[in-house]
């Protein structure tokens, strides 16, 4: 089992490669002026999309009808936001992943984390994935990692696949215990931040620390 821990001067981005906003989050971190002062780490977080409405006890028909309408409104909104995120990535269409593509691509993210890969290296890997085709599968991922000089002889029909799935599930559980609820999220000094837009606040925390007299 992989045990995850984050240092005091590290900022973690928890992402999901199936999600356009997660990739935008990494690009945002790449452009972040404070990045030079902090170690940015990236790990996968794979959970079904957060839907708290699903836990609401069933009620009267009118209440249920309202819940359904609200869910419909939320879905319509999410489509708009998805399109905007694709525009931010300079794309006109999205992508999808096969089942094995999902756990293999995220397992490679874990390998990059363990190898202390830089954000640039991680984004190079992701950029390779997004160039495969609209449907990202294990074979395409193998070609990308091969080009990057990473190991590409995966056995996805045997124990290795089971191990990858377990590692991914364990990691997501550990991140959840840290307060991560969805991807993308940031984790800094033990505090979880939903979304990537909290960088100005994190900057402010960093500035305060710089001003604090050393002990």
């Amino acid at each position, binding site marked *: 089992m992989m045990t995850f821990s984050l240092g005091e001067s590290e900022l973690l981005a928890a992402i999901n490669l199936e999600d356009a906003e997660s990739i935008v989050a990494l690009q945002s971190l790449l452009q972040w002026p404070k990045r030079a002062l902090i170690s940015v780490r990236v790990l996968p977080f794979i959970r079904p999309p957060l839907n*708290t409405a699903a836990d609401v006890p069933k009620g009267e028909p009118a209440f249920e009808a*309202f819940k359904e309408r609200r869910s419909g409104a939320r879905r319509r909104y999410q489509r708009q936001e998805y399109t905007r995120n694709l525009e931010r990535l300079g794309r006109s269409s999205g992508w999808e992943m096969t089942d094995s593509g999902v756990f293999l691509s995220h397992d490679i993210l874990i390998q990059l984390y363990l190898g202390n890969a830089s954000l640039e290296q991680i984004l190079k890997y992701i950029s390779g994935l997004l160039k495969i085709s609209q449907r990202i599968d294990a074979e395409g991922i193998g070609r990308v990692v091969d080009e990057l000089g990473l190991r590409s002889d995966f056995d996805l029909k045997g124990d290795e696949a089971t191990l990858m799935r377990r590692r991914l599930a364990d990691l997501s559980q550990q991140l959840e215990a840290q307060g991560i609820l969805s991807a993308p999220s940031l984790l800094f000094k033990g505090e979880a931040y939903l979304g*990537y837009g909290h960088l100005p606040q994190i900057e402010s925390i960093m500035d305060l620390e710089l001003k604090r007299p050393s002990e």
Partner: protein
Amino acid sequence: MLSVCIDFKSPYAFVAHALIWELETQHGFVIDWQPLTLNIGSFLGTAEKSNQGAVVATNRSEKQWTVVKSAYRDARRYAANQQRVLRGPLKIWDSSLAGISLMWAQEKADDRVDLKRFMDTVFTQFWQRACDLEDAQELVKHLKAANIKTAGFLDYLEGEGRERHDQLQSRLLDQGVFGVPSFLIRDEIFFGREHLDTVLWRLKGSQGPMPLLRFPWLQVSAL
């Protein structure tokens, strides 16, 4: 035309409203404020607390509590950054009267400064647990304090205002508005204060690349 949907009982709307007003006061885009009265029980379950803060009734799941607590932690950080007090409500309020009051205030205020004052007072006092959003007389008091006429207000609350409010809720849901603050520019919706930069970019004609999301954090130079 820019419309902004808010609900006085939303902590996110509370920490966003002053920043949203800047779209009008700093950039000149007049805001059509629209109340979206959240049915919190329909997506986060319900809960009621005693005056001491102990939960006395709830149907929330563990996941819903986690989300609620995380949302309040986040909102408190941003409230503190704006030197605002945010005390969690002890129950889920029916904020529809306050929403109808917002519609009234927008229509009757002689000056936008009065509307802004009314909104800021209701938000600020509610989040200090000093304003009963369900009390029509209290809303009258705040309208008067903001220099907004109140003749006919009580009839409006129960009649035309209620009707317009309820129709608006239905229309907003059909449009795809489900949370606050939401920004509407023609058919496009932006949900959350982190979209403020993108909203402004859109209002100014979408020149250059689309901005990334950013939660506004005020730099306090005195720190």
